[in-house]
């Protein structure tokens, strides 16, 4: 057959559905490819370069040798062992009896939990408040569900000291309140936040909660980095605040919890009357999640439940280990003229690049935001991969945030050697 020059082969009708219009671009696809092409040291995408803890790797090995049932379908909404331990674990933290069968849905990573949530709850015409900077998938997911995003920026508060912390980025109460309308269906919060590393304090969450209750809005709380807080910062679950359990979907991740991002096990947790809609989406999209990985996460979670709060807990050891890495990276960045923002939690640190006066004479990137151009220059010229922070802002606001780049510090390497 002759090579066809027609874009759609020999089909003439319009093929793709409208729901995927405008959401085909993706920074990860673009930047991971670039990092791979230039064999750059990857401080860009958020995954550890070390192994998951020994006890969970062992659990995985045991699971896959645990008889035929571990290789066949398990319960669609979550492997029984896993949902039971998650319910037990989080009941203790949230302070209420969580039903493993009704209040939890296991998903293919937290990403799929977010997808189920938007598909289940957001209809055309619904508004969803998203706090910028945001993990980039929130906006396209709202769009795919036919919703409208209503953006609200975290802003640097007045009178900050010379050393910036993620705590210096705050929401304006008036601006927050102004975003709620009769069409507001949900607000998405991410704490600890990606990319900033901000950990919302009790008062900030109360402020959001009050508005959710007042306007009868659902709260989607992405808490994948919940075990990674530094300097004694406490992670607070908005679902544990009065009046919030019945209107909150809390999202978690085994990948981030156990440094095994490639296992893609996550969950959504919330009241049965909301979770049942997520389950309907799940059963009509992927139906089941892989069994062996769920079994391993269940065993690992049981172990953490038993040693919770003690020194042996991975949830103590990992943040301790990363606490140092975070400070080390901040020092390295300062030494080359960047201004880091010290994160209170999470995997990432952003740094202000405006002091560096680099000649980014690369004609192929001249129409892109400054931080995109800087990141590409850094990959090509210095062999170091990072992510431009304007990627975490909506197209409307990208121009205002072109001077930050994001680093992942969950790496074993010696940071200063990269500079």
């Amino acid at each position: 057959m002759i090579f066809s020059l027609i874009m759609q082969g020999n089909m003439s009708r319009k093929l793709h559905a409208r729901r995927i219009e405008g959401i085909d671009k993706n920074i990860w696809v673009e930047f991971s490819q670039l990092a791979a092409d230039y064999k750059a040291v990857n401080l860009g995408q958020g995954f550890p370069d070390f192994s998951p803890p020994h006890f969970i790797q062992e659990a995985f090995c045991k699971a896959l040798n645990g008889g035929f049932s571990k290789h066949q379908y398990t319960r669609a909404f979550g492997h029984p062992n896993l949902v039971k331990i998650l319910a037990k674990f989080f009941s203790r933290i949230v302070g209420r009896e969580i039903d493993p069968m009704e209040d939890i849905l296991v998903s293919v990573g937290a990403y799929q939990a977010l997808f189920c949530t938007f598909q289940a709850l957001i209809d055309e015409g619904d508004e969803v408040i998203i706090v910028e900077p945001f993990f980039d998938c929130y906006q396209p997911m709202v769009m795919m569900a036919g919703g409208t995003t209503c953006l609200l920026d975290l802003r640097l508060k007045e009178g900050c000291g010379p050393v910036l912390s993620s705590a210096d980025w705050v929401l304006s109460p008036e601006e927050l309140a102004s975003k709620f309308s009769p069409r507001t269906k949900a607000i998405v919060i991410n704490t600890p936040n990606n990319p900033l590393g901000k950990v919302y304090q009790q008062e900030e969450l109360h402020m959001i909660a009050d508005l959710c209750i007042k306007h009868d809005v659902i709260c989607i709380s992405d808490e994948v980095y919940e075990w990674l807080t530094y300097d004694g910062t406490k992670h607070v679950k908005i679902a544990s605040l009065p009046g919030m359990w019945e209107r909150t979907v809390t999202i978690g991740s085994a990948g981030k919890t156990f440094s095994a991002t490639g296992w893609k096990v996550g969950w959504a947790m919330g009241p049965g009357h909301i979770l049942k809609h997520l389950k309907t989406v799940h059963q009509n999209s992927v139906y089941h999640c892989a069994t062996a990985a769920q079994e391993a996460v269940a065993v690992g979670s049981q172990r953490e439940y038993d040693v919770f709060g003690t020194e042996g807990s991975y949830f103590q050891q990992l943040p301790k280990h990363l606490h140092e890495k975070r400070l080390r990276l901040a020092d390295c960045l300062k030494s080359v003229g960047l201004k880091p923002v010290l994160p209170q939690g999470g995997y990432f640190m952003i740094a202000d690049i405006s002091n560096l006066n680099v000649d980014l004479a690369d004609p192929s990137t001249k129409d892109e935001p400054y931080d995109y151009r800087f990141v590409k220059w850094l990959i090509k010229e210095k062999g170091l991969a990072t992510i431009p922070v304007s990627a975490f802002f909506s197209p409307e606001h990208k121009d205002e945030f072109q001077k930050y780049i994001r680093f992942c510090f969950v790496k074993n390497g010696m940071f200063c050697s990269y500079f």
Partner: protein
Amino acid sequence: MRTSYKMASIKHKNTKRIEGLDKNVWVAFTSVAADPSIVNLGQGYPDIPPPSYVKEGLAQAAMVDRLNQYTRGFGHPTLVKALSKVYGKVYDRQLDPFKEILVTVGGYGSLFSTMQALVEEGDEVIIIEPFFDCYVPMVKMAGGKPVLIPLRLKSSSAASSVSSADWVLDQEELASKFNSKTKAIIINTPNNPIGKIFSRSELQAIADLCIKHDTLCISDEVYEWLVYKGHEHVKIATLPGMWDRTITIGSAGKTFSVTGWKLGWSIGPEHLIKHLQTVMQNSLYTCPTPLQEAVGQGLLRDFELMGKPDCYFTSLALELEGKRDRMAAMLRQTGMTPVVPEGGYFMIADVTALNQDLSHMGDDEPYDYKFVKWMIKEKKLASIPVTAFVGEDSVKQFEKYIRLCFIKQESTLDAAEAILKSWNKD
């Protein structure tokens, strides 16, 4: 203090796209059959172990640090390259591993990505009954309208020995289902639940209509390797004019007897696959890494053996053919009329001749639902009602059939045989 929740907030209601899609036959029947005293020939998964090299491949992958972290979103390089090798040979064409293949969460995930990418309000999608039950809800969730057409038993078939080949489409009826709104037709070959393998001429008839009406073809071929003696699995995408308009779906779960790994793939032209990739990157982004590595290694191993008897694709089919024949004999002995499948690991059986009176169970359900429930309770044998796989209009045609899965170890089949042998003895 627990704030009591008085009234269901209107904002907590489900979205329109999932209206009416909450019911599901599996949720009802798998919990019933979870009782270990019941012989479970219902849900379609093996109780035989996967090949050891596949399990070992996973154990090895899990030991590599990098393989416990995120991999390429559209498919782990080892896997997509292996798929392009295996299917390149099967299709006899060069397959671009990065542009013409997408790895998904099972065949199910491929179906979903396809519907979400290519079906929307205003589109009609032709579905052949009986169909794997998720096709209709997925089309509806994408806003499309399912248009059903049943397979029909040829009147010429002998009553005693029915094969899945005796179930055919009426060609005029098929042609009448196509119109300018028809976006796609879904075919499943080998078919679940009947086990029919569409012949080359049957596929050509469908292809002709797809080309005439400029329609897409979604070909669910998850059981593609489970083909019994005397039959050939034909890929509709290899027919002239079809590559450009077909998405073909495969499954690691069915290929390697690891349904719990939930890995599948879509293969097709770049101009279609790119839209499925957009859905993937906005729904779950990437599939688990170590599982993909292990499947990739498994495929490479079997690629070298393709066509030889110790290739798993061949050896599994051979093993299952024996079980198929054994199951058919057991059912006949009881008085049921099995439909011997040409492929796949299911068999449907007509229970009419048993004359089982189920009037005591009321009449708000089709006969097969009642029969299956009765059989679970009275005979401790689980199966699935075939009307779960058809639309309302076809219920009468299929309500005397139950579906049984035969990818079970010999001890399970022994237990089933014991039940079937003593059927008339109480």
